């Protein structure tokens, strides 16, 4: 440890270390056990603090900020109830590999373990849901823990870290402000060398007649979009992405076959069945995509990932490259040959033509798919879109095409209702010049609805697109299809007046109910850079298609046109 002569408090040091790490914005909520830190933050000119209305909002904002900017997201909470309110967000960030630093206050070290006021063993509680966590017992250890935590959060496969600071550690003095060495093994923060044989890897692709690239969230984390595009174009290979990978490959590219999986496009899922080679780039064979071992039954399977634990975890593969995706693709590229794949490409074209994304837009009601397409056109596809969880999430994934990485923010692994609004707020703070749209449902919206106040307080221009079906729509869809229409506790018998509610927070709002109002609605919603809420009333019966029923695989995909089959 190197030392300087001047002793400062732990709280002061925490602020200075955040500043040195280049952190510009933090999302938090104060309380007794974190007050020494807040007192020091008061003096910081470099760090902007956003006061939220609930700690769950703080961590989802940090996630939205991190995912849309590629930077570290930071959130702050006090001990006990403040800290436990971060649990959902930490789990979410762990599942989706989001780099988050959560800072919590803790009761003083001499009170730890005594069931003191507002004490919770947040260290113990968060062991399974963080990439790393630590309870800091001495102000002298603070610098080392900070450096380790940030490196771990950002390095390798990113993830959330939590540091717990007892009050006396924040108040204690220290001269140790730099970690001279890290205690953790380097592979947790250094960029690993690519392991495996890129040439052999490329040759398996070269001999394939019907190759398919399957791109996941790892592509976003490794900033590998340009490399993926180069690879797809050189190999003449169609590309499908997971829900997490949307935007890593341009959705408008001729080689794009859109999203695969439970609610992916029919042509992507059919391409999986037909391909003779599938190259997984930073995805994890999630069970919503690859239900069984016979995933891509006719294909040689290859996998590139930064996390060795993902290899052969659920689905066995034939070729493995371990390392950062961007580096790995750069090593494969020189060995990749073009080859004539025109037959395969035209096969894909006809799949697209014969099995398009589809919905019935004939009636007078507003169809969410139609509305989303109009929003896509109006924003020229350039908005950052966050979603909550449910039907609206899937419609947004299907009907808003993403061309750029870091523009699609959704809770993929955990499926967290309540994520959308705060994530949009975090994204807007990170991207003040971009249009940020939160697509939500009447159920999800009410989970973190209090963050409307955070929008109002910061005069933030966040656009809220609320699809109201007076139902927990996705639950209803399953009940209709698989539980013989027993709508157990999925209908709202009370919903607030969302327009008035938004207006109570000084957010302009409007409700539309008929198809004829769509244009007016889109105009109103996107007319300027300020915040706005549009409540779109949609039919409760509207469903998300295609769909692979739970527990089934690609073969069992049901398209809109097969709806009749399902009802039997």
């Amino acid at each position, binding site marked *: 440890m190197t030392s300087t002569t001047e002793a400062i408090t732990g709280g002061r040091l925490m602020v200075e270390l955040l500043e040195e790490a280049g952190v510009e914005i933090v999302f938090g909520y104060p309380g007794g056990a974190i007050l020494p830190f807040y007192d020091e933050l008061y003096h910081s000119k470099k760090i902007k603090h956003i006061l939220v209305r609930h700690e769950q909002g703080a961590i989802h904002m940090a996630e939205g900020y991190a995912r849309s900017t590629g930077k570290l997201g930071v959130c702050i909470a006090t001990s006990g109830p403040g800290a436990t309110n971060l649990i959902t967000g930490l789990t979410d960030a762990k599942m989706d590999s989001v780099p988050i630093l959560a800072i919590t206050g803790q009761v003083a070290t001499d009170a730890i373990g005594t069931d003191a006021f507002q004490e919770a063993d947040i260290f113990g509680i968060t*062991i399974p849901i963080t*990439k790393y*966590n*630590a309870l800091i017992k001495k102000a002298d250890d603070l610098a080392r823990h900070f450096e*380790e935590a940030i490196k771990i959060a950002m390095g390798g496969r990113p993830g959330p870290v939590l540091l717990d600071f007892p009050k006396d550690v924040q108040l204690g003095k220290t001269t140790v402000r730099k970690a001279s060495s890290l205690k*953790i093994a380097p592979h947790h923060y250094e960029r690993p060398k690519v392991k495996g044989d890129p040439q052999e890897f490329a040759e398996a692709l070269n001999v394939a007649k019907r190759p398919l690239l399957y791109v996941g969230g790892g592509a976003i984390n490794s900033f590998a979009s340009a490399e993926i595009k180069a690879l797809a174009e050189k190999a003449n290979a169609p590309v499908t992405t997971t829900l997490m990978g949307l935007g890593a490959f341009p959705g408008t590219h001729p080689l794009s076959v859109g999203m695969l999986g439970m609610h992916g496009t029919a042509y992507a899922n059919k391409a999986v069945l037909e391909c003779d080679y599938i190259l997984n780039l930073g995805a994890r064979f999630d069970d919503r995509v690859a239900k069984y071992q016979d995933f891509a039954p006719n294909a040689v399977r290859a996998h590139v990932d930064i996390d*060795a634990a993902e290899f052969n975890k659920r689905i066995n593969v034939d070729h493995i490259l371990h390392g950062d995706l961007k580096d790995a693709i750069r090593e494969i590229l020189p060995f990749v040959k073009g080859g004539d794949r025109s037959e395969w490409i035209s096969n894909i074209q006809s799949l697209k033509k014969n099995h398009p994304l589809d919905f019935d837009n004939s009636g007078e009601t507003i169809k969410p798919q139609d509305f989303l397409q109009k929003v896509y056109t109006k924003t020229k596809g350039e908005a950052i879109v966050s979603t909550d969880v449910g039907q609206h999430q899937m419609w947004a994934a299907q009907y808003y095409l993403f061309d750029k990485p870091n523009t699609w923010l959704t809770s993929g692994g955990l499926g967290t209702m309540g994520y959308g609004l705060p994530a949009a707020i975090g994204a807007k703070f990170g991207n003040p010049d971009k249009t940020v749209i939160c697509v939500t449902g009447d159920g999800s919206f009410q989970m973190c609805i209090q963050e409307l106040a955070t929008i109002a307080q910061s005069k933030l221009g966040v656009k809220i697109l609320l699809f109201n079906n007076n139902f927990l729509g996705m639950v209803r869809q399953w009940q209709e299809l698989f539980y013989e229409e027993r709508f157990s506790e999925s209908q709202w018998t009370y919903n607030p007046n969302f327009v008035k509610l938004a207006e109570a927070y000084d957010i302009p709002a409007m409700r539309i109910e008929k198809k004829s109002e769509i244009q007016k609605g889109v105009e109103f919603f996107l007319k300027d850079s300020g915040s706005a809420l549009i409540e779109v009333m949609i039919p409760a019966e509207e469903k998300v298609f295609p769909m692979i029923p739970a527990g089934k695989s690609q073969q069992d995909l049901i398209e809109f046109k097969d709806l009749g089959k399902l009802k039997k």
Partner: protein
Amino acid sequence: MKHTLSILVNNHPGVMSHVSGLFTRRGYNIDSIAVGVTDDPEVSSMTIVLNGDDFVVGQVKNQLLKLPDVLRVQDMAYASSVQRELVLVSFSITEKNRSEALTICNGFDVKILEMTEDSLLIEFSGNSRQVTNIITVLKPFGIREISRTGQIAIAYRNQNVV
């Protein structure tokens, strides 16, 4: 199949929970776990015995290596490592079978720690099979209490010598 993993970890609070929590969370069962500090006070060594096929053990190794406090994981092949466990057994004896008990103890290279009129307290170390074996042999006498350390292991330096 049984596997013995030797794991080096940072020696600070919570590391044990991190490691054992990983097993719980992923649904793997630990047969035995033994922990002690190494010559470096900052580093502890853990020996974990688990039952599983190569796939399970491969997963466990990969997942363990993801924990920042885990420095090294070694799968100890039986042929190229020493594996030992210590057991303390207290069991009943009578006047009639005392000499039989002592003969067994001699034969097994057991240390006698305490002898009373009606009991023996012994210490034995060996591989897990030998430990289980001695417990089986002593069982008919009437076991009062048993304490096993769990297995520890270390690799031979010279891999040619078995």
